[in-house]
């Protein structure tokens, strides 16, 4: 069985005008069987920084716990929140540490940086960063998501329009993927 397709997932993030949106599906499966319809894949790091983790669910949860731990210590030591770019570098370093026994996750990081400039990026399971200016996708439905986002995306969308766009892109993509779906969870910041 393919490890990245064991649980099924779909995560997408988009950049708007001084805002960003991050969305994921809600299905948790064990191959063909659906086990949960309220599974959380997008986690908060701090008020302006979110991470969505697609792929193997257990790795998604563990990776999130490790990152939350590191960020809390950072907050205590440096008395400030981590910038999204810094956090992305941290995630990348953490994933590469396990180069020969990786976390089977593809993270999507979305946040507001200095002066509330939206920042999104994704990386593969061993930490190769990919910055994007418009949208990033990951999960079993990623190919459909690429197509849907490419056609629906416009730059500089206001939060309300961004919400509509990302929701439609997510829903139409997961409808074409049997391993993800059962609703969506969208976050706008």
């Amino acid at each position, binding site marked *: 069985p393919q490890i990245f397709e064991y649980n099924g997932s779909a995560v997408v993030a988009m950049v708007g005008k001084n805002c960003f949106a991050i969305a994921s599906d809600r299905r948790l499966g064990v191959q063909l069987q659906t086990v949960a319809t309220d599974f959380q894949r997008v986690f908060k790091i701090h008020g302006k920084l979110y991470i969505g983790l697609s792929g193997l669910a257990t790795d998604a949860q563990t990776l999130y716990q490790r990152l939350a731990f590191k960020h809390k210590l950072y907050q205590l*030591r*440096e008395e400030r929140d981590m*910038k999204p*770019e*810094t956090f992305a*570098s*941290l995630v990348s*370093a953490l994933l590469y540490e396990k180069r020969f026994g990786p976390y089977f996750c593809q993270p999507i990081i979305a946040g507001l940086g200095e002066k509330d400039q939206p920042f999104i990026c994704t990386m593969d399971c061993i930490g190769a960063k990919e910055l994007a200016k418009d949208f990033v996708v990951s999960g079993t439905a990623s190919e459909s998501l690429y197509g849907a986002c490419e056609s629906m995306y416009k730059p500089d969308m206001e939060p309300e329009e961004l919400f509509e766009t990302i929701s439609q892109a997510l829903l139409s993509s997961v409808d074409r993927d049997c391993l993800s779906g059962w609703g969506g969870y969208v976050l706008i910041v």
Partner: protein
Amino acid sequence: WATASTPSPSPPSGLCSPPPPPPLSIGSDQVRCRGFDLTFPPISLQPVGEAGADRARAHGRRISGQTSLGIKAANGVVIATEKKLPSILVDETSVQKIQSLTPNIGVVYSGMGPDFRVLVRKSRKQAQQYYRLYKETIPVTQLVRETAAVMQEFTQSGGVRPFGVSLLIAGYDDNGPQLYQVDPSGSYFSWKASAMGKNVSNAKTFLEKRYTEDMELDDAIHTAILTLKEGYEGQISANNIEIGVIRADREFKYVYKVNYAVFTAT
């Protein structure tokens, strides 16, 4: 250092007798080098010296090396030290008491040169490790904290002795110009202006009189040189002091050319 040797019968500067195992004894004659000496009790941190209310002294360690000082101005930091060499035959260009830890953080010391070099090496490595993890240059406070943690480690581990240096770390980051002093105990303080070493009390009194909150960096450099001149035994010149500055451009620079008029002015 001395390996389990018996202590000298009458230690010249009143050191404590060696503590129970490990039998480590540091006689002050073993750490005395030309130009400065270092005295400290091996394990217990007993305050020494007169009641000068010097916070660094209150933590027990008194470094009496060559004077060094730092001043934090409104738009930068300057650090300076006297560079008294044991003989005129020494090539003064090979001696560098002021070093940079990162492109935007510099450091000067009072005390034992070899210990300083080791700390510089460790601090530089820590700064790079931080960068490797976060791809962000290390903030001054974090580097100071980690350096101080190293120094503290050596006061509590077995078989090692504390570092015989006090550091003045000067840097410029997102929180503006900063100046920190780190002592052998591992305690660190943020200063607006500070001095360390032999002439510390006179230098500090002088600085207290001359320091103003909104000082410009060039005034600060001038004041730094004058403060060094105060306590200098002999003729001060560009060859026997070292100055490092960091301005708002966040690049720590070693000052080579100084306006000579400063030395002749009172």
